[in-house]
């Protein structure tokens, strides 16, 4: 049964790739990139051996915690990162939850991210090669660590799926927040305690070694340092974490089956209350802009991305205080500016077959593009100003505000320009509207990832003028250059957007029916 599910999954993947050369290229591109990262990581782990033991241990543990956290958090931030088996779709078959869990774990372990994680986890043995016992322990711990990563990501995906499909939105948000605090609490505490001591990194690593995320990574190092008792303690914590996650995941899956079909709860407004539609001009651009904005607020698949706006600066400021540097806060506004438009790189996929309405009403491609861009700018511009002011305010970098706003504005506008073009020709499988937004769609992961890389690359290339000016301004502390960066970011960004919208519109006029046909066939 498990083997049949695995075969099914690879068949789905092969069929998806067969049909779409672009997607196949994306997978190859993603795989190559993963290989490059792997080679660098393994080389790093091998070279690490020349450093003193505490540094080795700190690097392995902190790196391991970051990797584990990544697995846990990715289901919160991205849709369908893995081509996977949707438990809900399988629920009509007589399949035990245990088998389902085994199958889902194996599916995770047999795709690029899972394989890469396994390789890099086992490669930590290279760091401990001077102590054979620790090296062998590292191999075993690597396997366990990979399982913790995969099962952890399954668990968070399943939990958040249940939360989002729950009844009342406010309750969901509260539970989600509490869950996040519960997850991150121990790590935060360890970091805080570690920072108080004289040698922040090794001390932090030592504390992290006794948290759910870091325990398994610290076992070999503790053996190598000759602390078998500590190693056993960490191992116990890791195995307990593993067991607890399996139990929670199982309970969550069972709950999914119990509550399946539960809608988002009725929402009713009085007749005649048109919301934004009553305010915007009654043109296609006005209509599409208003609908985009409504969807950002009301569609969980978009609303989810808005979490980035507060979380990204918070994380970067935290990281800055961790490293005792201020510059990380400067990264927050441009990163938020880059990530928001990235959500739209295949925006028509989110319309799904409802896009047929735009075709049957004869909306011009350019109006579609302008409307969607306007819908995003309406909230992204104010959000960027707030993020810039807050981030720089925290580290006291007011003087650099023009440069940072200029860079961010440029990145936002050129990002929008890029996605205006990309989304006119790319559709990826996404969760359908109103369905669980965390339901992974087969074959979407690598395409999404690779297309995101491409869009990011083009965005950065387009934003080079303001990036160069802005960074120069920051480096030589020139107010004049900062203001210049702001002006260039606004003017050049706007110009790119105009071009992007025109080109994207022309492409969409041509490709619209083909996009709809593809979405209809992929079970739309």
């Amino acid at each position, binding site marked *: 049964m498990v083997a049949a599910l695995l075969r099914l999954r690879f068949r789905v993947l092969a069929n998806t790739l067969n049909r779409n050369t672009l997607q196949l290229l994306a997978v190859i591109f993603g795989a190559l990139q993963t290989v490059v990262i792997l080679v660098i990581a393994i080389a790093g782990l091998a070279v690490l051996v020349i450093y003193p033991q505490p540094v080795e241990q700190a690097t392995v543990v902190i790196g391991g915690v970051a990797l584990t956290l990544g697995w846990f958090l990715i289901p919160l931030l991205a849709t369908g990162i893995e081509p996977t088996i949707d438990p809900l779709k399988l629920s009509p078959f007589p399949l035990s939850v245990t088998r389902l869990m085994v199958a889902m774990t194996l599916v995770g372990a047999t795709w690029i991210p899972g394989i890469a994680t396994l390789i890099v986890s086992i490669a930590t043995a290279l760091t401990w090669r001077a102590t054979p016992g620790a090296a062998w322990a590292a191999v075993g711990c690597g396997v366990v660590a990979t399982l913790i990563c995969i099962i952890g990501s399954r668990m968070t995906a399943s939990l958040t799926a249940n939360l989002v499909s729950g009844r009342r939105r406010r309750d969901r948000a509260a539970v989600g927040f509490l869950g996040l605090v519960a997850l991150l609490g121990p790590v935060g505490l360890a970091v805080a305690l570690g920072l108080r001591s004289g040698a922040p990194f090794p001390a932090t690593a030592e504390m992290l070694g006794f948290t759910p995320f870091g325990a398994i990574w610290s076992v070999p190092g503790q053996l190598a340092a000759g602390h078998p008792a500590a190693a056993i303690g960490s191992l116990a914590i890791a195995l307990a974490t593993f067991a607890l996650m399996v139990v929670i995941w199982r309970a969550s899956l069972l709950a999914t089956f119990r509550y399946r079909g539960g809608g988002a709860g009725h929402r009713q407004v009085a007749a005649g209350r048109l919301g934004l539609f009553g305010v915007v001009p009654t043109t296609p651009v006005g209509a599409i802009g208003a609908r985009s904005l409504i969807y950002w607020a009301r569609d969980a698949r978009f609303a989810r991305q808005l979490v980035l706006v507060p979380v990204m600066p918070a994380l970067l400021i935290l990281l800055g205080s961790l490293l005792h540097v201020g510059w990380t806060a400067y990264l927050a506004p441009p990163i938020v500016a880059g990530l928001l438009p990235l959500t739209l790189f295949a925006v028509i996929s989110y319309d799904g077959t409802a896009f047929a309405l735009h075709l049957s009403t004869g909306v011009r491609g350019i109006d579609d593009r302008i409307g969607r861009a306007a819908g995003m700018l309406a909230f992204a511009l104010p959000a960027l100003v707030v993020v810039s002011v807050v981030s720089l305010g925290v580290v006291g970098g007011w003087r650099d505000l023009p440069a940072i706003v200029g860079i961010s504005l440029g990145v936002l506008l050129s990002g929008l320009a890029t996605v205006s073009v990309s989304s006119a020709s790319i559709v990826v499988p996404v969760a359908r*509207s109103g369905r669980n937004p965390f339901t992974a769609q087969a074959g979407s992961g690598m395409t999404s990832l690779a297309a995101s890389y491409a869009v990011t690359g083009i965005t950065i290339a387009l934003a080079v003028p303001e990036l160069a000016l802005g960074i120069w301004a920051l480096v030589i502390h020139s107010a004049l250059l900062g203001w210049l960066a702001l002006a260039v970011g606004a003017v050049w960004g706007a110009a790119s957007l105009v071009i992007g919208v025109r080109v994207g519109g022309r492409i969409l006029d041509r490709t619209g029916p083909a996009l709809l046909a593809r979405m209809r*066939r992929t079970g739309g």
Partner: protein
Amino acid sequence: MTPTSTPTPAPITAPTPAPALDLHGLTKRFGATTAVDAIDLSVPSGSFYGVVGPNGAGKTTLLSMATGLLRPDAGTASVHGVDVWSDPIAAKRQIGNLADGVDLFDRLTGEQLITYTGMLFSLDRATIAERTRDLLQLLDLEGSAGTLVSDYSAGMTKKIALACALIHSPRVVVLDEPFESVDPVSAANIRDILEGFVRSGGTVVVSSHSMDLVQRMCDHVAIVARGKVLVAGTTDAVRGSGTLEDRFLELVGGRRFSEGPEWLRRS
């Protein structure tokens, strides 16, 4: 086969020279299968035209190509003389389209969705408001105007999609399976609306599985199977002396006179 063109039952307005919908050699292939195979079909202005066919006959593909949703591999489609694929905006202003098997923007309320559609046609605010009110009332959706479309039942979803197809006062309405999962009362109301629309000079093209309904409702009918039009003409000419269903089964074939396999029988 029976000749295609038969005189239109005199519409109230003067018949326009160009047919309401004129399809020539429309062809669509999906990989190795030909879903629609060089179909010619002429829908006279002012007719109530039924398109019937078995599952997978190519009805939806044909109507999608006729309304500008799916680009044909070959052939042309025009609405009152305007080519759908070379002048899409002008053509689509004349078409009201209810497509089958597509989602709606269901995070909007029913009223918002109709308004949205009206805005995509650049109608002015007062017109949209007035027509939305009328349509909600006609389709008995007033009570659900402020409910998200995602919370609608299948029948209500069909009705709101129909409202969206009518908001811009089209000349030709193309409805793919409009009665599927619609309750009998609403179906009768929808029929009244469509019949009134045809009496006032509009044209309706409707695809359906229900032979009975098509026979009663439509003055013209085309039977489509395996991507081809088997017969087309006035309903009376097509069905001859029998019912439309008899004629359909005779032409399409595939009727099995069996009681199903042994193991499925309970006695």
